[in-house]
């Protein structure tokens, strides 16, 4: 039972739930109070002061985001006093902000710009602060560009990095007129613990933090007649892209996206889901091998639990924060990098194209993937395996630049050879998806039967709980895996690095006893990635997750090891999982990194 209290908003009496803030109460009544430092994902800061409202009996204005409603409260959200103050605050922010909007990457999707337009700030009377200070743009990271001149000090990035990710790469330094958002000793983003996850980019209201874009490079490659440009699309992109193009969150646009990519001029439009399935076969085999070595051979050097390695944000995090556990990571490359390595070997050979003529582009919901593609280890094809990584947002820009009417595009299917996907590959885009896909395959390898869950939906690993656990008991395995009879396979899923940290600390203290753990750097998994449309919040992540599981449900094949192209790949090229070729092309190693 929730108690209701009586308040009035702009003279109209309303009943609202006790404990709600003025901002929430007004929202329920259909009144939007402008905000900047407020974000649904984050704790309340109350520092931009744009959301101030008048409360009867109080001389000063109150921040609507930070003030809980009290019985009898009389609130004015749009009085003259409120309007004048709000306008002043917007003007102050604009005076401090590099308002060179036409040259800004976030032009058209900037919360400050929107407010300035709403309040019709037509002149700038205050003295502009930007020309009086020196700013440097940090563009040394392959993933993220940080431009302090556009920062409005709302600290959303700082809270994101601390609360969602537990990384604290970004922090506030100095005070007063020198106050700024920066890193440890003001080093470049590439030189600190930043995992490149891009959650700060996704939560930034302005253009102060943006992804490093490779739009022009990709256009150039497409225009070059001597290049064969292949593009792969990650699972989470198909449930996010629509938002950037005016569709509701959770709209599935797979076929339209493929059609659009073809119209943009990509020579071959393929699916990262294919290598997601391949990852499951490799990683599943790796897990079973480790289990066998541990349980049968009693090999004490085997590192368990085994952790997934698909999320490059997570990889960089563990390299910085828990380097003593690098052996616990699966040696499998991420699906993007497996794809890249195969594109310039297997695909090149099959299509009879010189690998140096292939430009490999990937569309990812992720900014960390940009860094991943840059890693020196990722050149196993003899070339750079993945040349350019674009985010979901960048793909939307390509589509808009090409003038494509997304509404009118007829959906088509992916091209063949590395374009086949299963439901298991698709759910890689949601937290728990890799685990579910792995279990679908591993259980069947061990027992010869399908996982004992209705419609193959392994519900215990689904959902948005930060850390989830599941135990699957193995009964009546096939002869080869008889040693696993009666073993309870203990699994865990963590998403958002702050939750990854919890699991890692539990392992470190000996409290956790898992066999297999899925880690995803971003809240909600890839569908909530740093390269996904802005805004992203819990509600939107939920909608995208529903779309992912619907996509899985509707696919005819839903188990990775049944992907016909994967079967063909092993037959024609790789020979066997964890074989010599696999080792060379699909597996990698990790590096210990500093902790600042």
């Amino acid at each position, binding site marked *: 039972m929730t108690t209701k209290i009586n308040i009035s908003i702009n003279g109209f009496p309303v009943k609202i739930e006790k404990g709600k803030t003025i901002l929430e109460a007004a929202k329920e009544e259909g009144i939007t109070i402008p905000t900047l430092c407020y974000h649904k994902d984050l704790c*309340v*800061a*109350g*520092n*931009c*002061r*744009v959301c*101030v409202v008048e409360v009867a009996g109080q*001389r*000063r*204005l109150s*921040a609507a985001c*930070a*003030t*809980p409603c009290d019985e009898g409260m009389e609130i004015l959200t749009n009085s003259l*006093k409120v309007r*004048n*103050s709000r306008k*002043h*605050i917007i003007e*102050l*922010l604009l*005076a*401090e902000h590099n308002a060179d909007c036409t040259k800004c990457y976030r032009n058209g999707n900037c919360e400050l710009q929107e407010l300035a337009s709403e309040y019709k700030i037509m002149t700038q*009377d*205050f*003295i502009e*602060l930007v020309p*009086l200070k020196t700013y440097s743009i940090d563009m040394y990271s392959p993933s993220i560009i940080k431009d302090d001149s556009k920062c*409005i*000090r709302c*600290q959303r990035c700082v809270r994101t990095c601390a609360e969602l990710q537990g990384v604290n790469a970004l922090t*506030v330094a*100095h*005070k*007063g*007129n*020198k*106050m700024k958002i920066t890193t440890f000793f003001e080093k470049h983003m590439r030189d600190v613990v930043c995992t490149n996850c891009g959650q700060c980019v996704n939560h930034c209201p302005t253009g102060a933090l943006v992804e490093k874009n490779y739009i022009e490079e990709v256009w150039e490659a497409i225009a070059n007649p001597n290049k064969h440009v292949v593009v792969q699309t990650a699972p989470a992109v198909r449930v996010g892209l629509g938002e950037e193009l005016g569709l509701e969150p959770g709209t599935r646009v797979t076929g339209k996206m493929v059609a659009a990519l073809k119209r943009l001029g990509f020579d071959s439009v393929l699916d990262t889901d294919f290598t997601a399935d391949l990852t499951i076969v490799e990683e599943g085999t790796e897990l079973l091998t480790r289990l066998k070595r541990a349980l049968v051979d009693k090999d004490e050097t085997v590192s368990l639990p085994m952790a997934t390695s698909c999320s490059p944000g997570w990889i960089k995090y563990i390299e910085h924060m828990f380097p003593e556990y690098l052996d616990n990571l699966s040696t499998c490359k991420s699906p993007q990098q497996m794809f890249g390595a195969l594109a310039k070997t297997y695909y090149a050979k099959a299509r009879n194209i010189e690998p140096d003529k292939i430009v490999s582009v990937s569309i990812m919901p992720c900014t960390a993937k940009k860094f991943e593609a840059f890693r020196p280890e990722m050149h196993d094809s003899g070339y750079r395996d993945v040349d350019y990584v674009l985010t979901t947002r960048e793909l939307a820009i390509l589509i808009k630049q090409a003038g494509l009417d997304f509404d009118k595009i007829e959906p088509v299917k992916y091209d063949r050879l590395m374009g086949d996907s299963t439901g298991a590959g698709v759910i890689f885009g949601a937290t728990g998806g890799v685990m579910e896909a792995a279990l679908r395959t591993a259980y069947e390898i061990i027992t010869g039967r399908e996982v004992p869950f209705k419609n193959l939906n392994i519900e215990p690993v689904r959902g948005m709980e930060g850390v989830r656990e599941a135990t699957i008991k193995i009964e009546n395995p096939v002869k080869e895996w008889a040693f696993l009879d009666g073993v309870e396979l203990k699994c865990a899923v963590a998403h958002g690095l702050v939750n990854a940290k919890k699991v890692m600390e539990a392992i470190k203290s000996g409290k956790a006893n898992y066999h297999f753990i899925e880690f995803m750097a971003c809240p909600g998994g890839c569908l909530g990635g740093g390269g996904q449309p802005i805004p992203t919040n819990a509600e939107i992540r939920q909608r995208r997750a529903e779309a992912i599981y619907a996509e899985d449900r509707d696919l005819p094949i839903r188990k990775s090891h049944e992907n016909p192209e994967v079967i063909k790949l092993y037959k024609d090229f790789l020979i066997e999982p964890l074989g010599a070729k696999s080792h060379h092309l699909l597996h990698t190693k990790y590096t210990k990194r500093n902790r600042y």
Partner: protein
Amino acid sequence: MTNSHQLKRVDFIFRNENDWEKVLSSTLKRKPAELINELISSELKGRGGAGFPTGLKWKLTSEEKSEEKTIICNADEGEPGTFKDREILSKVPCKVLTAMAVCGHVIGAKKGFIYLRGEYKYLEPELKKAIDEFEYYCKEIDFDFSISIFMGSGAYICGEETALLESMEGRRGEPRNKPPFPSQHGYLGKPTVVNNVETLVHAFTIFKYGAKKFYDLGVQYSRGTKLFSVSGDTPKPGIYELELGMSLQDFVYEFGDGDTKAVQVGGASGFLVPRKKFKDAAIGFKGKLTGISLPTGGSMMLFNSSRSMFNVLDNYLEFFSEESCGQCTPCRVGCQQLLLGIKAVKRGDKPAVYLDKLMRLTETMQLTAKCGLGQSVANSFSSIVENFREEMIY
């Protein structure tokens, strides 16, 4: 107040009878409710500048249900022109410690902290000695209470109680949203009383002599005495304990150099009163006093006619531009705009009417800043520009 030109000097605070042990042991025998009533009836208000009724603060905190509570003595004396807490802590530290222990007894706290201003580091050894002696005595009388010193790092904003708490918890000194107030959700999320050094000394006086003796001093709404840090163009700078409610006229008569042009009451975040308003201004908390009432943390800066009010204001704004924590927009950007604005007007880059725009900005800053300091940083601007507009322009 009459034109008697008489200020009532009082000597409670620095009178050192060395009887804190007696006061402590006898006060601890009294019931918390009784002590709260004593404080409430004395009408003691916080001496840091904001003037929240001390008795009520203790009462609210005592009513919170929590295993752990804390009493913090705010010795982050950072307001320009204030130097009284330093004297208290070096001359009569045990009075402060006693009042902290009594507060602990009243609210149910076993732990006290002194948040000592970074620049007062040199006081630490002596203060530590006093604390050792004090804790030894507490043990002797079987009273479970300990006090630690927490060193500040020189940020002005940490004098604001919630920024102080953030700083103590190891975070950046930035004010919190209120509510919740420290009495509910203070140090480490537990109910906490944060009192100014001087407030605690007055509490000691009240527990020793009774509320009446304190209440009888001062005027309605502003009872008791106050320590004033007198500086500037005065022949006798120093610290004086005076009765509250005096008129500024009387004050200037006593402390001025015969050529006083204006007095800045309450430090850089306080108000400037020009000569023509001395008569109407009384030093005390807002109430039904006629004329202007000026609350103060105790800083009284006198300026004679050789001083440029532009330079004075420029100096204050320079200070606030640097010392704003930088968290909220109105204070962070507002202070910079005020500073750059007066310079631009002086240079002629902006027209004189730009001062009016800035005056409206000060209103917004007062209305919307997140903390008490942010709300008051523009006070000096508005009072100086209002009274000495011509000095800003020409």
